[in-house]
């Protein structure tokens, strides 16, 4: 359960950092404008200095977060939460200093504390959310008290707020009371909302697990049924062959024709059943064994049969493989199947004298493959359905013998079993391009890579 929430936490921390860059910019600009355009006597130098500290801290946060996600492991959530702790604590302290140099309680900047309360109560437990609220209130109270008793100087916002509000106990008490009430409401409200959303996320994760179980049962059922059908089909094929071959006696022309039709059709059924078995086994992750593969060997193995087919039909076959890609960890048989499957598909739907290409590049720690052709393309509204079982393009000419409609489902399953992602883009009648991204090591995908794969464009 926790594991599934990891990316959300990372996005949260990143978004927090991004927001801080923005806040920093606003802080510097508004500091400048207030001082020089409105001539309000705030202490601009200390504020610039604090901005510099904030800048350094934010760079530090970026580095720390990168370290955490790169390292991965079981404790990622723990460390990300700690990093968010650090962000909130440093922010609150710096904010108090800024407030001090820009008018103390007279400055509406005091509202900024609420942001951190919302963020804290969204991620942390009830106790910790209130801890941060109390911490913030105490910081403000301390600042106000020190200014009130003249332990530290107060900087007036002459021309902006009424003079000496910081010295007005009634004003301080009133503002403090409103601030306290607002804090409590904010924390309890946002905590409740987030709590509900976490509950619903939990329910969603559980429903997903249940769906996966049901799906597994379904696949096991399909496997059993298909296995049985396969036996029957195999027997039928052998029996028809006895008749068709004339071993059971000579056939006249019409008998031979229909024996052949029956044989061909049964053979198609047999191929279909084989593909369905193949897909279902991959869904159930039967017989998947990852090992280290030399990428060069993998490509060499698949390329030459494709090259022969291509040259038979005068199709130009371009190959570009980044030489720096040496090894990949995966299941060699299914990866070969994946590449051949997609390349054969490209040839099948490309007219004579067309061209197909295979491009393999690095994409950070992952490997990105593009297989494109100058073929018949895919109608726009069918693109989301391409990887569905039994999908066949409606624009495929009658003379191209379509297969079982399972080839691309198998391809997608192979990619997913390796922790990768596949998608297609196309222009009807002009070109089609299949792109898939595979992690170099499916057994050890860092969070960075997982996010990169997840976020990679899917259409």
């Amino acid at each position, binding site marked *: 359960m926790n594991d599934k929430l990891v990316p959300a936490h990372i996005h949260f921390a990143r978004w927090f950092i991004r927001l801080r860059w923005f806040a920093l910019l606003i802080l510097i600009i508004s500091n400048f404008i207030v001082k020089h355009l409105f001539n309000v006597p705030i202490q601009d130098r200390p504020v610039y200095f604090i901005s510099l500290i904030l800048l350094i801290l934010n760079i530090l946060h970026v580095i720390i977060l990168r370290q955490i996600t790169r390292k991965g492991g079981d404790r990622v959530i723990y460390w990300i939460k700690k990093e968010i702790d650090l962000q909130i604590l440093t922010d609150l302290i710096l904010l108090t200093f800024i407030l001090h140099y820009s008018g103390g309680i007279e400055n509406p900047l005091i509202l900024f504390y609420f942001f951190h309360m919302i963020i804290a109560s969204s991620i942390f437990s009830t106790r910790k959310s209130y801890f941060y609220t109390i911490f913030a209130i105490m910081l403000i109270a301390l600042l106000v008290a020190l200014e009130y008793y003249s332990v530290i100087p107060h900087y007036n916002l002459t021309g902006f707020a009424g003079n000496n509000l910081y010295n007005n106990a009634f004003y301080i008490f009133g503002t403090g009371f409103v601030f306290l009430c607002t804090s409590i409401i904010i924390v309890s409200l946002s905590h409740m909302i987030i709590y509900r959303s976490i509950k619903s996320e939990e329910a969603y994760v559980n429903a997903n697990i249940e769906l996966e179980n049901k799906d597994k049962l379904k696949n096991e059922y399909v*496997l059993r049924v298909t296995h049985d059908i*396969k*036996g029957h*089909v*195999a*027997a*039928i*094929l*052998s*029996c028809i*062959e*006895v008749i068709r*071959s004339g*071993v*059971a006696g000579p056939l006249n022309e019409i008998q031979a024709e229909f024996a052949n039709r029956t044989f061909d059709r049964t053979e198609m059924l*047999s191929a279909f059943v*084989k593909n369905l*078995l*193949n897909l279902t*086994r991959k869904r*159930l992750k*039967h*017989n998947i*064994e990852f090992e280290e593969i030399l990428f060069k060997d993998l490509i060499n193995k698949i390329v030459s049969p494709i090259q022969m087919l291509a040259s038979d039909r005068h199709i130009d076959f371009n190959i570009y493989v980044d030489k720096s890609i040496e090894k990949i960890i995966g299941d060699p048989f299914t990866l070969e199947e994946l590449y051949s499957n997609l390349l054969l598909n490209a040839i099948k739907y490309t007219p004579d004298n067309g061209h197909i290409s295979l491009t393999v590049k690095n994409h950070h720690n992952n490997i990105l493959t593009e297989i494109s052709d100058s073929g018949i393309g895919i109608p726009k509204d069918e693109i989301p359905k391409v990887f569905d079982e039994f999908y066949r393009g409606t624009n495929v000419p009658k003379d191209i013998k379509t297969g079982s409609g399972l080839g691309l489902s198998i391809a997608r399953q192979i990619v997913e079993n390796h922790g990768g992602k596949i998608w297609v883009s196309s222009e009807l009648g002009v070109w089609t391009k299949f792109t898939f991204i595979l992690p170099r090591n499916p057994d050890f995908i860092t969070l960075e890579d997982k996010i990169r794969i997840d976020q990679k464009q899917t259409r």
Partner: protein
Amino acid sequence: MNEKSKILIIEDDVDLVAAMKKMLENKGYEVIFDYDPDKGYEKLKNEKPDMIILDVMFGSKGESQGFKFANKIRTDSQFSGTPVLMLTAINSQNPFFNFSPDTDNEYLPVDAFLDKPVQFNELFLKVEQLLRQKISKWKNWPEKE
């Protein structure tokens, strides 16, 4: 070949046996068969075939009667030299076991494999080859060839 070579088929699919019998007889072989491996073993003793076509015959629990049969004849000095052609779907990765005829032969002492559905041209080729070979390469199993 003056005398007809004798082939024993052990396979539980009645129709597949009928088809193979007809096709092989047409090629001039003598074909005997049994649907049950235990009774098939009796036939082996009585008829002394030149080679055996053996189905994997997976039971519901995933154990293979074909494997048992193959191991049994290899340890029986009388038949340890009889070549065996195994009918299987091993190439298309059976869900019940991780096995490749290319690398794991020593665990399964058969001489050749044939994928189902049976392609008769391939069947004829492999039968001819094993009959020419006469003696199984696993005669001294479990020692290596």
